[in-house]
Every structure is written in structure tokens, then in C-alpha cells.
């Protein structure tokens, strides 16, 4: 039993017949001391045939299992037993790929699958132990061949960039490459025996030797789970939309009801505001009219005070646009021009037309003038 990278429990049991395997699996799961729900199976080297094609044929990764299955008769020994095969492309280096294939007798795999199913275990993976075994070793950097002694034979694993891509068995004993990981230190000297199971627990294999029926059942299960998730997602969307529309409807209905309830008071208040605006406009208009009242009397007073007694005014006109025109007689028209220019509120003072010299009865000759100015206030 592995949790994370820690080895929690290990057990060992043997079987004589394949029919005993289900019971053995169930007993091991029961002895674990904790509930076991998921299991990964690492098949030892004597149960699995492995083959490597280097360089790999030109295949897409998803076509490799079908290729291996079709070529099973050429690649593996059948010995009269149907085989379950698997294959994958593994990067040996940055430029080279190998086809890494494995096969196992189908009855054994079915017995394992059935045993797991009867024990209530979900089978996550089933692959050659050789594929994951390097995960249980601490290897020197750059190691490409991993030697693992196993009794009277030695297994040599070739490790590339993408993982294990070849397994070779040779007679004789060679020392182990590297050392077992510290997690296996508590295995009471059984590190070599427990290492395949431990390695399968911490690393998911690429190859999958699950029988076709189990794979199909898993695909169906996955599809069903995906469908359920999609249906649940769709249902949640519908619920969210319904909730949103419901909330909008309730808000709209409530606002409409309140508006109906407030209609009378609101109309009255709006009418009051309109009346208030009209009233203020009325007051503003009267204030404007009062402020812009004409001040012609003051202008006439200022004008007559500014002119000397020798000036005789014949006519004064104040137009609506503020133009002021003063006509009269004076000894000198220029003096009148200067005097008018000093009257407060008058600007642009000029003589209009030519000044003529006229004889005024009882006074003598005087200038007849017409002065035009602009009043600042109409």
C-alpha cells in the first residue's frame, strides 16, 4: 500500500491455480488494515513477454496498440494461449523513438481483473513491472542501462528520454545499478521483492495490459461518467438560467406593483414639481424684467447735466437697440462731443455727418451737430 511516495503496508501471498487468484487478491486487500479502493498491478518479468522495435515503425501513437495486436503472432510466442498485447512509442533520445511492446496470457489477466472486481477494487493499471521499476531506484545521472538481478538471471532495462524502452534477460548475476529508494528501507530486506509493486504505486505505466473486455467496459464507464457530468452541467446551467429568469421576473413584477401603488402619489408629486418649476420660472422672469427696466430718465439727466448752458438741444432719440442720437446747436460741436463722451453709460461717441454753421436768431452763428452714441443700458 502506497500513499504518495510512502510505503504504508506490504503483504505477500502465493497461488497455485488461477482460480485461487481471486481469493488471494481479496485476502491481501483485507489484510491491508485500511480500506483499499484502487489497485495497480505490476506483472513480473516471467509473466510478460516484452519486445522492442528500434527504430520504431512510422506510426501515429494512437495506432501503436492496434499495430502490436495485429503483429502479435510475429512478435510474441503464443503457446496456444490467447494474448493481451499493448505497445507504445518511447523516446530513446531527442531524435530516436522505439516501439515498446508487451504481451501476457489472457487467462491470467482475466483472473486478476475478476479477482479485483470480486474484491471491490478498481483496477487502475496493469503493466509489466519493468516499465515502472526504475522509479524505485536512485540512479546516477545519465544512467541508460539499469541492471536488476533476479535470482539466477539478470534483467537489464534500457532507459531513454521517455522512460524504459527495452528489457533483456540474461543468465548470471550482475550487481544492482544504483540503490533502492529510502521508502523501501523499511521492507526488512525485501526491497527487491517489493520494489515492482512500490514502483507501480508511485508511477503510472504507459503500457496497459488490461483485457479488451475490461477496456471496453472502462470506456463505456468513462463515457457514461462523462455523459453524467455533462448532463449535470447542463442541468446546472438550466437551473442557473431558470433562477436568473425567475429573479428577474420577480423583480420586474415587484417594481411594477410598487409603481402602480405609487402612481397617484407620484403624479401628485410630479405635478407639484412642475408647478414649482413654472413658479420659479415666473419669478425669474419678473426678476429679469425688473433688473432690465429702462433707465432713460437717468440718461437724459446725465446728458443735460453734462452739456453746458450754451448748448441748445433740438432732439434726443434713444432707439430700442441702445443707439442714442442728440441733435442741437452749440458754439463748438467738438466741445459737445467731448461732453457727451464724459456721460456715464455712453460709449462709441461720434459726430454723425458734417457739422454745419448756422445762424441762430438771437444767438448768432453756431454749429449744428448730431452726436451718436451707444448706451450701455437700453
Amino acid at each position: 500500500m502506497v500513499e504518495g511516495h510512502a510505503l504504508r503496508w506490504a503483504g505477500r501471498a502465493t497461488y497455485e491455480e488461477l482460480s485461487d487468484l481471486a481469493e488471494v487478491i481479496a485476502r491481501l486487500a483485507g489484510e491491508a488494515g485500511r480500506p483499499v479502493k484502487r489497485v495497480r498491478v505490476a506483472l513480473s518479468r516471467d509473466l510478460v513477454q516484452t519486445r522492442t522495435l528500434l527504430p520504431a515503425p512510422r506510426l501515429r501513437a494512437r495506432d501503436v496498440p492496434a499495430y502490436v495486436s495485429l503483429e502479435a503472432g510475429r512478435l510474441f510466442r503464443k503457446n496456444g494461449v490467447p494474448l493481451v498485447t499493448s505497445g507504445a512509442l518511447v523516446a530513446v533520445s531527442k531524435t530516436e523513438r522505439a516501439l515498446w511492446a508487451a504481451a501476457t496470457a489472457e487467462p491470467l489477466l482475466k483472473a486478476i481483473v475478476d479477482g479485483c472486481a470480486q474484491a471491490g477494487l478498481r483496477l487502475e493499471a496493469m503493466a509489466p513491472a519493468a516499465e515502472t521499476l526504475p522509479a524505485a531506484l536512485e540512479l546516477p545521472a545519465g544512467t541508460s542501462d539499469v541492471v536488476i538481478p533476479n535470482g539466477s538471471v539478470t534483467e537489464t532495462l534500457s532507459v531513454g528520454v521517455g522512460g524504459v524502452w527495452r528489457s533483456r534477460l540474461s543468465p548470471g548475476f550482475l550487481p544492482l545499478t544504483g540503490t533502492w529508494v529510502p521508502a523501501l528501507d523499511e521492507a526488512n530486506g525485501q526491497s527487491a521483492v517489493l520494489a515492482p509493486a512500490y514502483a507501480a504505486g508511485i508511477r503510472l505505466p504507459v503500457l496497459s495490459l488490461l483485457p479488451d473486455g475490461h477496456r471496453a467496459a472502462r470506456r463505456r464507464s468513462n463515457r457514461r461518467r462523462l455523459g453524467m457530468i455533462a448532463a449535470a452541467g447542463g442541468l446546472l446551467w438550466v437551473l442557473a438560467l431558470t433562477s436568473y429568469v425567475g429573479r428577474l421576473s420577480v423583480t420586474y413584477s415587484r417594481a411594477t406593483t410598487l409603481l402602480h401603488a405609487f402612481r397617484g402619489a407620484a403624479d401628485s408629486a410630479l405635478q407639484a414639481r412642475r408647478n414649482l418649476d413654472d413658479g420659479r420660472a415666473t419669478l425669474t422672469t419678473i426678476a429679469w424684467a425688473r433688473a432690465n427696466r429702462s433707465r432713460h430718465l437717468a440718461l437724459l439727466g446725465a446728458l443735460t447735466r453734462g452739456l453746458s448752458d450754451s448748448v441748445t438741444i433740438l432732439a434726443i432719440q434713444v432707439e430700442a437697440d441702445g443707439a442714442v442720437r442728440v441733435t442741437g446747436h452749440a458754439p463748438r460741436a467738438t466741445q459737445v462731443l467731448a461732453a457727451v463722451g464724459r456721460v456715464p453709460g455712453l460709449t462709441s461717441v461720434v459726430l454723425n455727418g458734417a457739422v454745419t454753421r448756422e445762424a441762430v436768431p438771437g444767438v448768432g452763428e453756431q454749429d449744428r451737430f448730431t452726436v451718436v452714441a451707444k448706451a450701455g443700458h437700453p
Partner: protein
Amino acid sequence: MKPRDRKALVSGLLTVFAAWTLIRGVPAAVRAVSALRGKTVGQVETLARVEDVLMRAPAAHDSLAVTFHAIVALAPDLVQGEGPADAQASLSALISMAAGRHSLKLIRVDPLPDSAVGPFQRVSLRAELEGDVGGVTSLLSTLESGEPILTVSALSLDTPDPLGHPRTSEALHLSVDVAGLYLPRAK
């Protein structure tokens, strides 16, 4: 019908239904929800404005009462009359009365076109008068500072005999355009 045929038929129907839902149903639903959202937002905003108006209603009523009192107090400032003819008659009477009070001779009165000033109408006329300096001065003072509010928009003052006679007061000819405001009857 074989199960395979039935499955194909069901799949086809489901595909058609899904396509119809995606092409027609979803856009229609989005439009409907969007329209409902727009209506709801508009209604909520209207409700907020109405609540604001109602909340300010007491203050508005108080201000309205004050404004009404101020408007009532404006009555002396306006020319009497509810229509153009009434207003012209009132203004003519005012000018005539003022001329008589200040010893001026009213020669003629001509109405001028009306115009609108806010809620009021402006009534105008041109008056020609004759009299002495004191009368003209008093008349202008009455028009420009008395009640109702009148304004002299144009003025022409001339003397036919500038030298005059030593024993008689000079005679002035005055032409004034006078305007005032009246409140027309609401239609």
C-alpha cells in the same frame, strides 16, 4: 424496425433537435432574457426615480407654497388683462392716466406687436405726447420706477421751437415705446 435502425432514427432526431436548439432556440432564449432584463432594469430605475420624487415631495410642496406666495405678491407688477386686447387697453389707460396726472397732452397711442416672455406675454404700445420738461420728466419717472413694471424701449424727444417764448414754457414732443408684462389666461 431493427434496433440499429431505431437507434439511427433516434440519433437523427436528437441531432436535428440539438441543431434547432442551437440555431433557433438559444438565440431566441437569449433575446427573450435580454429583453426581460432590459425591461426589469428600466422598471427598477423608474421605481428608484419615483421613490426619490416621493421622498422629496414634502420639500417640494413647502417650496411650492413659498413660490405661490411670491407669485401672488407679483400681481401689482403686471399689467392687468387676460388677453392682448385687455392688456393693450389697460396699458393705454395707464399711459393716459399718467399723462393726465403730469399735465401732458396725449396725442395718439398705437399698439405694437406682442411677444412671449417666459410664462408671460409682453404688451407694447407707442404713445406720442406733448408737454413741458417737468411733465416729461415726471412721466418717465412714473413709467420707469412705478408699478406695474414697465420699460421704455425707445424714446424720441424733440422741441419744435427750441428758443421758445420768454414768457411761456417750452413745448416738448415726446414719443415713447412702452412695454409691460401680463399673464395670459391659460388655454
